[in-house]
């Protein structure tokens, strides 16, 4: 890299250092940032002397006279006075040029101005100055002007011919360039059209692929469902007959105690109805789809005081509630709702295959142990007709206040069920289009109102959704 011309310099170390820096530097360098040095392109570039006013360009008088308009003025000031013109000066001189003033005259004015006299001892424009002074004389000045025009006529003729020739060549080269650009534009348009067509083909291919993927997912879910049912038939059916699992939650407590407990912590019936309203569209979609022709019955497992049943009834759904709490059952019956006072799993186990349109359970599954939960989901899958929907809402342990405290307010809760587990379980059992819905965040005014990362994370951990629902469709 270096010529090793000096024994006192450690060239190995220097080379390593220089190369290491280059290596690092190149990693962060966008090569397009430095346009390649292209002499021909730069040669064609128009010089913007306003931009170059701080560069103190020195190209001699030759460069000066090739410039026009504002560029001439900026260069002339830099050249003769060593500074750019003020805005006012630039405007005035440019205006004069535009009104037909001679460039030489402006150059003389600057060169022989008080400011320019001392700075340009090496630049002589004496001949030009004399001519311009003579022309400026009163009366005879006109004569000198005419005389100078006559004297310079042959030169003018040469210059104008040269200019005409130059302009012709310029025009020719512009024409060539325009033709070239047009050709390039045409090629670009063609290539864009081709790209568009390719894109269209890709889009349609992608749509087909997505459709096929959807079909495959359905097929996988359906296989899982069939497998699940087979497993169930082999292993769990005898248990229903021989030792049916119970999901009764209040056998060891008093019904009235549980009603009072729920009254205290679950919120007012209106509040609950409002929250439940969120789920109606999912049920409508599922039950209106062609897949659920066989049954439109909605079962509310653990129907409690019947808020959801009421809402369903108001919205024209055929709904049945199951609950083990007699107080709740009586309350529902008083409101004219169809309910059964029975253990839900036992009831579900008795239902025929594909006989239900929708199975809902709000704040029920957290009361089950894992084998009960499995059993419940297996039967739900069996009893739902194809296209039927399962909806399970439970406290969300992602919210640490829920997971560590409020979940345990209810002494009959078994264990918190993280959203990830329920998502997996429904998919694994064979439900399709499984989605999670995080619900009921803490009121906004209780959150930490700071725009910091710590506040954001704390709000996420302590004040996010207190409940969530997992929804799945039977394929």
């Amino acid at each position, binding site marked *: 890299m270096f010529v090793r011309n000096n024994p006192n310099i450690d060239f190995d170390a220097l080379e390593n250092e220089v190369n290491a820096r280059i290596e690092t530097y190149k990693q962060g360098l966008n090569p397009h940032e430095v346009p390649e040095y292209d002499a021909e392109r730069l040669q064609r570039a128009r010089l913007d002397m306003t931009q170059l006013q*701080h560069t103190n360009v020195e190209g001699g008088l030759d460069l000066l006279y090739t410039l026009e308009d504002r560029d001439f003025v900026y260069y002339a000031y830099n050249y003769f006075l060593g500074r750019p013109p003020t805005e006012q000066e630039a405007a005035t001189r440019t205006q004069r040029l535009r009104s037909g003033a001679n460039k030489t005259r402006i150059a003389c004015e600057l060169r022989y101005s008080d400011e320019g006299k001392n700075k340009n001892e090496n630049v002589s424009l004496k001949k030009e100055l004399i001519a311009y002074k003579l022309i400026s004389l009163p009366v005879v000045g006109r004569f000198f002007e005419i005389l100078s025009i006559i004297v310079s006529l042959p030169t003018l003729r040469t210059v104008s011919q040269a200019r005409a020739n130059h302009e012709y060549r310029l025009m020719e080269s512009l024409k060539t360039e325009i033709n070239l650009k047009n050709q390039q534009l045409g090629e670009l348009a063609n290539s864009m059209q081709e790209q568009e067509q390719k894109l269209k083909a890709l889009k349609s291919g992608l749509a087909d692929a997505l459709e096929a993927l959807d079909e495959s997912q359905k097929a996988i879910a359906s296989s899982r469902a069939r497998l699940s049912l087979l497993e169930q038939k082999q292993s769990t059916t005898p248990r229903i007959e021989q030792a049916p699992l119970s999901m009764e939650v209040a056998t060891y407590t008093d019904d009235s105690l549980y009603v009072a407990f729920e009254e205290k912590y679950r919120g007012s019936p209106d509040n609950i109805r409002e929250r439940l309203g969120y789920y109606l569209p999912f049920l409508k979609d599922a039950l209106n789809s062609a897949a659920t022709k066989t049954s439109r019955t909605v079962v509310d497992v653990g129907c409690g005081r019947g808020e959801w049943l009421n809402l369903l009834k108001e919205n024209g759904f055929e709904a049945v509630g199951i609950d083990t709490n007699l107080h709740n059952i009586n309350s529902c019956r008083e409101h004219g709702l169809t309910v059964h006072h029975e253990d839900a799993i036992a009831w579900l186990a008795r239902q025929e295959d594909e006989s239900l349109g929708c199975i809902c359970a709000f704040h029920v599954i957290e009361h089950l142990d894992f084998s009960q939960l499995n059993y419940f989901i297996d039967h739900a899958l069996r009893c739902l007709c194809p296209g039927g929907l399962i909806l399970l809402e439970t406290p969300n342990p992602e919210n640490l206040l829920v997971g560590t405290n409020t979940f345990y307010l209810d002494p009959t809760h078994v264990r918190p069920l993280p959203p990830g587990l329920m998502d997996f379980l429904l998919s694994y059992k064979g439900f399709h289009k499984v989605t999670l819905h995080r619900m009921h965040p803490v009121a906004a005014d209780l959150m930490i109102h700071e725009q910091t990362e710590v506040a954001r994370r704390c709000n996420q951990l302590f004040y996010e959704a207190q409940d969530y629902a997992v929804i799945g469709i039977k394929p």
Partner: protein
Amino acid sequence: MATIHQFAPVISQGDGVSGSVFFIRTLLRSLGYSSDIYAWKSADELSGKVFPLNQFDSNSCDLLLVHHSMGHELEDWLHSTTCRRILVYHNITPSRYFQPDSNEYYYANKGREQLRQWRPLFSGAISVSPYNRADLEDAGYKDTAVMPLLVDLKKFEGGIVPPKASWRHRENEILIVSVGRFVENKRQHLLLEAFWHLRRMYTDQPARLVLVGGVTSHKYHHQILARICELRLEHEVTLTGKCPDAQLHWLYKNATLMWCASEHEGFCIPLVEANFYSLPVISFATSNIPDTLGESGLLIEDTCPISMASTTVSLLRDAALSKSLVRAGSKNLQRYTVDTLLPGLRSYLEERGIRP
């Protein structure tokens, strides 16, 4: 008293060949010779110091030193001289660096042709560098000597004036100076690119690149200006034009280091001037540059602007490296001083029978 005169087609102020002619006159006079300069054309302010050709008298001249650095039309005059002649060869920039339709292209070719044709006219030839000597040998010259009779550092003993520039130099501003005419073979465009990279690699201090030199190729000068705009360097690059010595003096005094990207240099006087002003030099290793710099200067073998930028960062951050280069520069400078050159010149002339 023996008389040794010198001839050069054009003598002006500030260019390398003219500087060399005046320097040789000083040396000759100090050796006791009578010596004057003759030229076809010279700057107005040099009248009295340079004489027109029609005043030259072969009969009163024992030896004529003929400086050659470009072709010209004064062959007839040269043939008309009858005194003994020795060629002082300064190198001719190869014509490939010029536009084929330009005067420079024509005279560069013509100059090399003349170098061959004129061989019988000269009893010997002095080249100012080993690189140039190779040209002489190619052209068939047998009696050749290398004497870098070029750099008269006394020219900097005058005043010190800041260049006519629209920027105000700040104390902590790094000033990188490069001296050379604007012509394709000087490759100032590589310096712009190196500076662009340097500004990204090194942000410890503000920096400025000052390009000193008149315009030989307007086409190339235009490209350089357009390139400055393209790389958005207009606030950090200054073009001073051709500087009088006093301004050059100021620039060297205030500069941090010198850059050179030239592809072809027969000698490159600014490098020795940098030695004189204790300026470290970073240059691409081309033509005669390694010989001119000797142990001074960092010579980069590959022509890569990023390498130049990275080497500059190392130099700026390593005071010991910078000191080594300055020390080597002072040592190198001794090769070009009057005290070193005088004995060589005296014995060269005396060997040829020309005594004062």
